[in-house]
């Protein structure tokens, strides 16, 4: 059973072979092209080249329907479930068992859910509403959906991104069960621990290309380096930090999301004047929420945030910006810029009502224009005119606009989330230089990044977050391997000890994979 891919935009000549009855992990960072590839496979997108072979026969999928008919099931990262449907309805959708007059045979649908649910011990009530189910259970509904259509290959796209550790453990055992019953699983993830726990074979993708094939025996550190890449280490020249007072302090900060999950869990740290604290970690471990809580977009359940001796909790975003915080949000296009606005308007997005840009209610367009031109010069932004919509700029130049805005005033604290995501090398270097310059001017800087290269390039100290907690705060000279372990939740001292004296023994959970590959012949029929 072979699937071959050829060149297309997000995936550059990727070849991938899935053996029957194996769990094949597709490992890669966000934006590496994993999901795109699987969507092509599932018939949602058209491939621009290459072909898919099923049992050595080329197949074409005009839509998901064809893929399903061919025995491919997919559990999307964002569940494809209608919140107001019952489990039985969700499973039936598209493949409804009907009685006369097009009425759905709900009894039949329920029976199917119960059957599969019982087979894998899912414990799902067919009459429960999707929206009332915890995400883990919703995911099992998705799996039931795929299995009810006799999926032979199950694609799980970032299945653990939304799960708590316990739910993740459950999922892993479900995957084992599926495997035992002969289903092949493609498991897309960027979480190392899970890959080693479950995968039979591992393909690592980086920037749309396969960078390696690994075995589950590899250490997390090895996997991490393949995934993150060791190539051009972007080293930005910087002097050692000359830290001053810890003017920014976070104490026991706890944030709970709408679904009552704790996303930031009792986090405390300081940032001193003239230093950069980088928050490292795999995406989705609370870093985003931490940054948003500091700027005031989210209210914490517990804890304090102190800047220059004043508690910020309870203050509006505007007040916090006014007290000297510069904030570069993680999702530039949603939170950082207004695409329809002109470049110069975007340059004053959060300072439009302050001098020198405004006097009373009047915007001073001459000043705004001049300042914009100055910043274009200073930040080397390539554009036609400052009155063009910012949507006409490239991502790198858009980010420079955001930086020019946030760094263009006297700051008491600078926060940037993923400041170089999606940027080209030149822009990355520029952004890093500016951040270091801000540090050297004495501003405490907090940088959230999932890119280890960036963390190393900027940080004076590194805080690693895992599952909402800060696992440890370590120096910038900590080894990549140790950071990798910490990002997987290993406490700082253990991680440091482990990497000081390399050992592999904790890779014991990986399942042996050769027997699955050989017994596959009858399964493919």
């Amino acid at each position, binding site marked *: 059973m072979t699937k071959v891919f050829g060149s297309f935009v997000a995936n550059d000549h990727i070849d991938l072979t899935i053996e029957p009855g194996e769990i094949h992990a597709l490992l890669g960072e966000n934006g590496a092209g994993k999901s795109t590839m699987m969507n092509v496979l599932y018939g949602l997108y058209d491939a621009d080249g290459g072909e898919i072979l099923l049992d050595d026969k080329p197949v074409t999928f005009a839509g998901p329907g064809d893929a399903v008919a061919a025995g491919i099931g997919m559990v*999307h990262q964002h569940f*494809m479930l209608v*919140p107001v449907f019952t489990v039985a309805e969700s499973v039936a959708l598209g493949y409804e068992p009907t009685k006369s*007059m097009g*009425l*759905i045979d709900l009894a039949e649908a329920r029976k199917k859910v119960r059957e599969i649910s019982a087979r894998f011990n899912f414990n799902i009530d067919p009459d429960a509403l999707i929206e009332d189910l915890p995400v883990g259970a919703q995911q099992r509904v998705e799996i039931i959906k795929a299995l009810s259509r006799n999926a032979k290959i199950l694609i799980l796209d970032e299945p653990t991104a939304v799960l*708590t550790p316990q739910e993740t453990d459950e999922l892993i055992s479900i995957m084992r069960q599926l495997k035992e019953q002969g289903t092949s699983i493609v498991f897309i993830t960027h979480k190392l621990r899970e890959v080693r726990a479950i995968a039979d074979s591992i393909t690592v993708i980086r920037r749309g290309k396969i960078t390696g094939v690994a075995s589950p025996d590899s250490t997390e550190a090895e996997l991490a380096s393949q995934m993150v890449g060791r190539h051009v280490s972007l080293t930005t020249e910087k002097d050692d930090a000359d830290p001053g007072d810890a003017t920014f302090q976070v104490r026991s900060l706890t944030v709970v999301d709408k679904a009552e999950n*704790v996303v930031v869990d009792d986090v405390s740290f300081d940032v001193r004047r003239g230093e950069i604290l980088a928050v490292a970690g795999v995406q989705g471990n609370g870093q985003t929420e931490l940054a948003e809580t500091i700027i005031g977009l989210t209210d914490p359940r*517990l804890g304090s945030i102190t800047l220059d001796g004043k508690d910020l909790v309870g203050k509006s975003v505007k007040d916090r910006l006014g007290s000297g915080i510069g904030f570069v949000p993680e999702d530039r296009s949603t939170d950082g810029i207004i695409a329809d606005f002109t470049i110069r308007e975007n340059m004053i997005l959060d300072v439009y009502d302050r001098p020198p840009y405004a006097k009373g209610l009047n915007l001073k367009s001459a000043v705004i224009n001049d300042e914009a031109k100055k910043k274009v010069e200073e930040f080397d932004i390539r554009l036609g005119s400052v009155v063009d919509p910012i949507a006409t700029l490239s991502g790198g130049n858009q980010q420079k606009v955001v930086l020019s805005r946030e760094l263009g005033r006297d700051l008491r604290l600078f926060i940037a989330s993923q400041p170089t995501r999606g940027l080209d090398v030149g822009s990355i270097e520029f952004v890093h230089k500016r951040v270091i310059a801000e540090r050297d001017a004495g501003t405490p800087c907090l940088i959230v990044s999932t890119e280890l290269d960036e963390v190393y390039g900027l940080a004076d100290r590194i805080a690693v977050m895992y599952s909402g907690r800060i696992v440890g705060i370590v120096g910038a000279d900590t080894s990549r391997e140790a950071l990798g372990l910490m990002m997987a939740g290993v406490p700082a001292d253990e991680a440091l000890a482990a990497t000081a004296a390399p050992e592999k023994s904790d890779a014991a959970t990986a399942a042996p994979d050769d027997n699955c590959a050989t017994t596959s012949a009858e399964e493919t029929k």
Partner: protein
Amino acid sequence: MSAQNTAAATPAAKSSAQSKALTPIAWKFPITYSILALVSLICFGLIGRDGETTFRIATGGDFFAIPDVVVSSTVAGLVLSLILVILAAASIYLALKRITLAGWFPMVFGILFVVSFLAWAGGGSGGVIPLTTLLAGALALSVPLIFGAMCGLVGERSGIINIAIEGQLLAGAFLAAVVASVAKNPYAGLLAAPIAGALVAVVLTFFAVKYWVNQIIIGVVLNVLVVGVTSFLYSTVLTENPGLWNSRQQLPNLPVPLLSDIPILGRVLFDQNILVYIMYVVVIALQIFVFRSKWGLRMRAVGEHPKAADTVGIKVNFTRVRNTLMAGAIAGLGGAFFTVGSGLAFGKEMSAGQGYIALAAMILGKWNPKGALLAALLFGFSKSLGNTLQSIGTPVANELLLMLPYIVTVLAVAGFVGRVRPPAAEGVPYVK
């Protein structure tokens, strides 16, 4: 192992969840009931109006001859108000016990309150309240609303916001009148009306699905367009030769044997023309098919989460267009009630904003056929009540009664009457 999934939340979240577990006492409804009961007690009971109120049930030719019910305005007001006070007290007690009221409670309360009000309103002038006329009027006024609400419901459940119900009703009324007049047969009009409604839907979906124009804008503009076209043709073609183009044609009443002989309700419900019976069928069919058929399941999926529907091979835009056209046909039928259904010739802008009330009924009915039906009946009743009271001359201004449905709707969308949740993907064009 699977049992763990519910225990996923960490301790901090759990404790806060527990503190919320004891739901706050729902004071909204008990307070509303209490205020209404007190209004009834003070205004209709204690202050009251002297004289007697006659409830006329029988109309000529009834199978059973039921005499008029004559009551003293004050006495009736007092008695009914006391019952209302008791019910309000019960609602407070149940609220304290955190027991949710049964569905019949507000209905019974509402009916008693209205009767109490009628007894008061009829007093003084020695008024006669013609009950059968009141109810028949309510149904007649509700018919276009119900059709319109069903149209809106099917469209929005498929993900297309339809503000153009007003235009569809008007178009249906127009074409039904013209075709019936030319064919000299009201049933011909009944066949033409759905086509008119669907045509408006064609324009709506053409711009909404093909060009992603905001659906609210299209709806508003389409209403103006239909008013323009129908009024223009009315002023030119129809008035030039009304005998040919716009003569009155009426769908005959087809009393259902036996059922129509039931006093009051039988006359109201089962001595009607075919359009009303079609309406019954449409509502019942939708109530069943929206929730229990393959068609309904797919429609709801497309309106709630089109991408999910797409991943299981459902053609999202095709489903939306088809359902919206069908819905347009339903609204067109509702429009026919203005002309052939009521035996009237077409008149300029004769839908008079009913499409917007239909929209309100749909929302108030929470996008459910049953709920929309009740809401539309409520709106029809309050209008009929206004008409009746105006004809017998009472102290309450007609306008204030007519305002009620709209105020109720505003309160509903603002969340005072339960939570109103529209289909999640309505109004959002589906782009792959």
